[in-house]
């Protein structure tokens, strides 16, 4: 039995004397999707940036595959909320960015790039520039680019927050299919309750001041999941539960 893909223990982070994260303990098993949800300001994005290696000054332990995190690296690629697709590169150049850096041969790079572009359904758009794509399509490029690095863990930082509801639901579905196909492990930060449940195997509910994990709950629905799941009774039950948990933690502070 292999160890956890991500292991956080006693993780704390303080900026200018303000405690942002307090004693975070969480482990993500290989192939698992854990979503992190909580009120705004609970430090969920900060938590993700610690794992991404984009944050310093934290204390405690943060390991990926048993090795401590010391900085950013292609074993932990990120899909950001902002549009992070390089606008000066075509879709193909964007997706092949990490393989090219990793020194893969031209043939390997081309094969991997085509595979990832197909995985997100952008065949035929490979030579487009990002300005020719819609917001949802650019997010797909982002996902393909992050997956093409062959990461150990895929980090999702409220990736679909800026999209409309229809596009968002469609991309969540595609995310699940892609992650499933690639047996990818993922830590997925969101403030959208429905998204948090729909894509997750487990949900970490955070509370604010200081940011901490209040509770981790299981999502029992089998995969693949269909859009109808969102309307089902058990789904709505979990939704209510999380909603109450978040409100309760907010009330506690106030």
């Amino acid at each position: 039995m292999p160890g956890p893909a991500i292991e956080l223990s006693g993780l704390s982070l303080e900026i200018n004397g303000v405690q942002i994260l307090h004693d975070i303990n969480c482990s993500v098993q290989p192939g698992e999707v854990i979503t992190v949800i909580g009120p705004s300001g609970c430090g969920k994005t900060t938590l993700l940036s610690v794992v991404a290696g984009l944050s310093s000054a934290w204390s405690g332990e943060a390991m990926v595959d048993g090795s401590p995190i010391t900085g950013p690296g292609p074993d932990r690629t990120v899909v950001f909320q902002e549009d992070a697709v390089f606008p000066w590169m075509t879709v193909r150049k964007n997706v092949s960015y990490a393989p090219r850096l990793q020194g893969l041969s031209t043939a390997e790079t081309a094969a991997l790039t085509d595979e990832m572009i197909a995985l997100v359904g952008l065949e035929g758009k490979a030579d487009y520039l990002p300005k020719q794509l819609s917001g949802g399509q650019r997010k797909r490029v982002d996902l393909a680019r992050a997956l093409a690095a062959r990461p150990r863990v895929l980090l999702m930082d409220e990736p679909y927050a800026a999209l409309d509801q229809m596009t968002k639901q469609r991309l969540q579905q595609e995310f699940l299919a892609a992650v499933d196909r690639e047996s990818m492990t993922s830590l997925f930060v969101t403030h959208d309750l429905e998204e948090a449940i729909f894509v997750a195997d487990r949900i970490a509910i955070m509370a604010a001041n200081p940011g901490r994990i209040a509770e981790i709950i299981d999502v029992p629905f089998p995969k693949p999941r269909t859009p109808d799941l969102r309307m089902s009774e058990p789904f709505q039950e979990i939704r209510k539960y999380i909603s109450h948990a978040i409100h309760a933690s907010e009330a506690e502070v106030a």
Partner: protein
Amino acid sequence: MTTLTKSSAHTVTEKPAGRARPGAPSAASPRRLARRAIVPVALIVIWIVVSELRLVEAVYVPSPQDLWNALVGLSGQLPAAFASSVSMTLLGFVIGVTIGVGSGLLMAYSVLARDLLSDLLSIIRPVPVFALIPLFALWFGIGPMPQVALIALGTSVVLGVTTLDAIRNVSPVHIKAALTLGANRGAIYRSVIIPSVLPHLLGSIRVAAAASWGLDVAAEFLGAQEGLGYMMIVRQQYLDTAGIVLICIIYSLLALILDFLLRLAERPLTRWTERSNRSGPVAGLVGNV
């Protein structure tokens, strides 16, 4: 990936951005072209009428015929003056661009270079370059040297400052994305920073190119012995207004040609930034040229 599209039951299609339909009459429509010609044509007609009827003395406003005569009269000296001014200006411009962009990029890459140069740049930046002409004449003597030095200085300071500003404005999320995708410092510099700043840089190179003609004229006024600017001063002593106007026109054409060539050169490099044509109410407000 057919399995993906099949598994997504939602069939909402997304509209790709871009390619706006033509809404407002385009800037090239015959009616708009005619309307745009009104002011320039009117000015030319007024000029011809005023000068041909001698409503104003030729020493103030020379007629088209005067200009032609000036061109014929100066045709002996013009080629040499032209060659001198163009070569000096281009030399100064190329040196200025090289130093300006080079130091800007160096400052972006190395903290040491930034510490050494950025304060110097902020001190030199507000100094009016034209004020240095007498000093340059003193240092570099009479002749082409002060001319080239002035143009090089004027353009390099502007470009150094813009390069540095542009680098500071590189989107942090692009740098973060590159970092997490495994790029090191050198790779980020090449694949993110340089392409991000290129459009700003090329834009200010064009501004600097336009400014360098002005710098050339000013430098020649004060201490040249040949060139178009020097020729203007001589024509002024002869009260040869037609000659002066003629040289002004030559300078304008030179600036236009250089700008056109630079635009041609920058196009393939900045294609990714071009916006699709504005249309409809947006075009009505800000134009679609």
